[in-house]
C-alpha cells in the first residue's frame, strides 16, 4: 500500500505518514440499546467500495481528517479537515 492521501494542510503525502482511524461512524445516544452500542464499538461496514474514514496526519500537521476512499482501488475521492464539517458526535 503506497497510495497518496491529500492532507488539506500539507498536500499530497504517502499513506505511510498517516495513522488510520477507522470508519466514520455515528456514536449512539447514551441510552441506546446494547446492540447498537456493540455495533458502534466492535463492527465496521468494511465496504468494498467508497467509504469515509478517519486519518490522522501523524508525520505532518497532526490533525485528524476524513477521507472518502474507494477501498478496492485505493482511490481517494476527497479529503476533508474534520473540524470543517458539520455534524455532531
Amino acid at each position: 500500500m503506497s497510495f497518496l492521501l491529500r492532507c488539506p494542510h500539507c498536500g499530497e503525502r504517502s499513506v505511510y505518514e498517516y495513522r488510520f482511524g477507522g470508519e466514520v461512524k455515528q456514536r449512539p445516544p447514551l441510552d441506546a440499546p446494547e446492540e447498537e452500542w456493540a455495533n458502534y464499538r466492535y463492527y465496521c461496514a468494511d465496504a468494498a467500495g467508497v467509504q469515509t474514514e478517519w486519518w490522522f496526519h501523524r508525520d505532518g500537521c497532526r490533525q485528524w481528517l476524513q477521507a472518502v476512499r474507494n477501498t478496492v482501488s485505493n482511490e481517494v475521492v476527497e479529503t476533508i479537515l474534520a473540524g470543517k464539517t458539520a455534524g455532531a458526535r
Partner: protein
Amino acid sequence: MLIQRSALFYCHQRAGAHFVTHHGWQMPDVFSSLDEEVALVTSGVGIADVSYRIKYDTRIQPAGPGWSLGFGHFLVVSEPPLDPPEGATDVTSVYADLLMAGPFSREVLGKLSSLNLSNESLPNLSCVQGSVAHVHTILRREDLGSMPAFHLLVSREYAESVWQIILQSGREFQANPFGMKALQSLRG
C-alpha cells in the same frame, strides 16, 4: 546561577566545542576554528544547534513571520528576546532547533526524509512538517544568502539522535557541526 543547556550540550562537548553563554544558554561558540567551519559549510554541509531560539505555539495569526503548522495554527520563532504573543504557549524548551546549511544540505535531507525539498515545493521561508530520520520534524527553509539552509525543529528528546544521523548521512559531503561564531559570520 541557573545553568541552561540544550539537548546537545554533551554532544558538542565530545566534539571539542568551546562554549559561550548566549541569552542564558550554554551554546557552542567554536568547534575547530571559525574559518574552517565556514569553509566546510560553504563547500559541503554543516549543522548548528540554535535551540536557544524562542518559540511560541499560537492559534492567532502572528503579525510577523509565522510558520504555519495547521489551519489557524502557527509557530512564532525568533532570536531572543521576544515578548510572548497574546494567548500563545511557550514551546522554546520543547523543540531543539537544528540549522542545516550548505550546498549539499538538500542531498543529506533527501536521505533522511521523503519530503519534497525542491525549490518549487519548498521555496525559501516556507515551512513543512514531515518525518526526518523517523522523527517528526518542523522544517523551515531559511537560506543564508544564496546558500540553502534549513531549520529542523524536533522534540528535544530526539535531538541527539537526529543530530548524529545527520552527521553520519552527511559524511560524504564532509558534514561537520559549526558554532555560533561561524553562524554569525555566515549570516553576514
